[in-house]
């Protein structure tokens, strides 16, 4: 932690540390730290461990089984979690759907879905992006025609992360095509086992099928699966985007990655000495470390500030700088790996020397997905320039 903690926060941190020490499989943690492959089954198993501890949903209210920690505790948890190299939670259900259900879902929807998210009984994927829409999310074209008690869904989603493992999707669909494009969008939950759905993995530049195309051909979805009112899906989805998100800056992960970078650089020699002792290299590492300190302090200031008192573009800044820092670190790791790091580890096999390049290539996504960094800079500028 950048700043000293109060005694009770320190005790909390120690409790988190102890839990991770006891329950997190060291070989899994080693793989996470070294950018190895983690299977879907391992992830679910780990999430269930968190669930049994009552820590799967740090931000959720207690009435829905969350830990309801204040922001600083969530931050401390996050830091310890990533320092221990616990696998990242697949958070679409917990962080994106959960809050929408709590605020806009019906009682029946909440009682059915929220406990299942908490227990990782469902694997949710997010059906927002479409081919041709890009950053202009609202121009989506997948249609849902109302046919009595069900919708008939036709169209295509893309960039759907890990849809190949998902049994459920929350999805934006067009229920009306006239008027403003943001209107006429509805928010719908889809069982991935419904006939007419085709999932086709997209191989990315690191060779991994991390995202998917999902096709809908006359897919029948009960009207009961719609969240809130027809035509208000855009509002529901947007509800989240402005929210403060503790983890978006990726501070905990970046710290671990810098540690790992230094460990790697200490084991490689240049000019007859460990690369880490090379002044020019060390000075480039120092730049990133300082950048990360500044971002962490910014994040902490935002957590401490009364809601709404910030400049208004915090989340965009945390996203932009957080992703740039992670990309920068992965580039330094690639540099340390040298030409040996160019090896492609066979698909599905354990990662060996190819981890650095696979990671570097994969992280190109950070500045593109989740609202490209260009879009984030547009947002920041708009807020600064104002009306």
């Amino acid at each position, binding site marked *: 932690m*950048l*700043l*000293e*903690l*109060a005694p009770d926060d320190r005790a909390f941190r120690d409790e988190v540390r102890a839990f991770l020490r006891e329950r997190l499989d060291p070989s899994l943690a080693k793989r996470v730290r070294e950018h190895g492959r983690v299977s879907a089954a391992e992830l679910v198993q780990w999430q269930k461990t968190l669930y049994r501890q009552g820590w799967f949903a740090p931000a959720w209210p207690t009435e829905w089984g969350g830990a309801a920690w204040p922001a*600083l505790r969530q931050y401390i948890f996050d830091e310890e979690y990533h320092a221990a190299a616990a696998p990242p939670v697949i958070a679409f259900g917990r962080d994106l759907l959960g809050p929408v259900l709590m605020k806009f879902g019906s009682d029946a929807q909440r009682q059915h879905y929220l406990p299942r998210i908490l227990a990782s009984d469902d694997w949710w994927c997010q059906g927002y992006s479409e081919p041709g829409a890009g950053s202009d999310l609202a121009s989506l074209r997948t249609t849902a025609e109302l046919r009595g008690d069900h919708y008939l869904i036709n169209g295509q989603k893309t960039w759907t992360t890990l849809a190949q493992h998902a049994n459920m999707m929350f999805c934006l669909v067009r229920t009306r095509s006239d008027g403003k494009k943001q209107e006429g969008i509805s928010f719908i939950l889809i069982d991935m086992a419904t006939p007419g759905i085709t999932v086709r993995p997209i191989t990315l530049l690191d060779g991994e099928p991390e995202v998917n195309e999902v096709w809908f051909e006359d897919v029948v979805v009960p009207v009961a699966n719609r969240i809130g009112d027809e035509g208000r899906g855009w509002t529901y989805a947007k509800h989240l985007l402005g929210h403060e998100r503790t983890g978006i800056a990726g501070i905990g992960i970046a710290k671990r990655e810098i540690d790992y970078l230094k460990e790697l650089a200490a084991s490689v020699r240049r000019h007859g000495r460990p690369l880490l002792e090379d*002044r020019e290299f*060390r*000075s480039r*590492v*120092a*730049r990133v*470390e*300082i*950048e990360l*300190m*500044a*971002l962490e*302090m*910014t994040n*902490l*200031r935002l*957590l*401490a*500030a*009364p809601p709404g008192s910030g*400049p208004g*573009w915090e989340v965009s*800044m945390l996203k*932009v*700088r957080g992703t740039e820092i992670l990309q920068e670190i992965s580039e330094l790791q690639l540099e340390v790996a040298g030409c040996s790091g160019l090896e492609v580890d066979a698909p599905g096999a354990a990662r060996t020397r190819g981890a650095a390049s696979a990671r570097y290539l994969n992280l190109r996504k950070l500045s593109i997905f989740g609202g490209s960094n*260009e879009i984030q*800079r*547009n947002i*920041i*500028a*708009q807020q*600064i*320039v104002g009306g």
Partner: protein
Amino acid sequence: MELVFNAEATMLRDTMSRFIEREYSFQARKRRLVLPDGFCRDTWKSLAELGALAAALPVEAGGLGAGAMGTLIISEACGRGLIVEPYLATVVLGGGLLELAATSVHRPLLERLTEGSCLLAFAHSEPESESDFGGITTRAMETRAGFSLSGRKNAVIHGATADMLIVSACVGGAAADSTRLSLFLVDRRDSALQLRGYRTIDGLQAADIAFDGVTVPRAALLGEPGEARPVIDHVLARANAALCAEATGAMQSLLERTVAYLRTRQQFGQPLARFQALQHRMADMAMHVELARSMAYLVALQVDGVDATARERVVSAAKARVCIAASFVGKQAIQLHGGIGMTDALDVSHYFRRLTAITRTLGDEAFHLDRFAAATP
């Protein structure tokens, strides 16, 4: 964690804001610059009356006890208002040395300082020590009556316009241990000083000072002989923290002025603020300002509270990051203003010059990056 201003801090900040608004328009500042000293002693008195000079000092030393957060708030205001009075030189450096090194003998001097009736400057850096403020070669030879000082100090901030100088020196002959420093109070008007004052690009004053056997009484010694190094390091750390806060204030002003200019300035039939390349530049400026502000906070929280190693590490991280921000924000503010930003008539170029000076004062980006890396495992 004290990440949000408390009531006292908020009050101090508001006091400083009102002061700048009332007394420190760009035109009023210009009038001060052409005074013989390059600043205004009456304004200094006003700052004393507002409590700004005593704010950071501990209560037991006659201060208001606002500590490093007080220094941050006042320095940030100095940056916003481009204040030319010697807050850094007299209060942060001079007052800090008096607070940390002096015995009760020097308490009256501290009182005169907080009243605004005695201006101090710290004569420390030397031609050869400039880049890393180490390796002091000025010597103090013990004499029957006290000490005789010999050596050269350069780029002493406000050195020609202060009342008293605090001079760092090693006690002993040429073979004296340069890590064991002592501090001496010297009257700036002492005719034995060879003093060349000059103006710096930011409108402030500096001086090169030669001591060629300048004699001072034994009472001029501040603290224990040979024990001043930790105090000096601590005070220089505070000064760098203050510079970080001052730079944040100046950058915030530049950002606001740039945004306002681009909103009104029309080119090719629309306001410049509509051009996406310039929008992204503003976004980058804003992020730099915010990240620099965070570092200024961080260093203010830690400059007095952690051990020397941790302190130097965080100070260097903060100063390096602030230098990067100051350089980017300053250059972009000029660039986005175009020709008008290049003129002496607009305040933008004055903010830019002060930021440029800050990046060169008490260690630059390269120096602090290096020191941070050396202190980081």
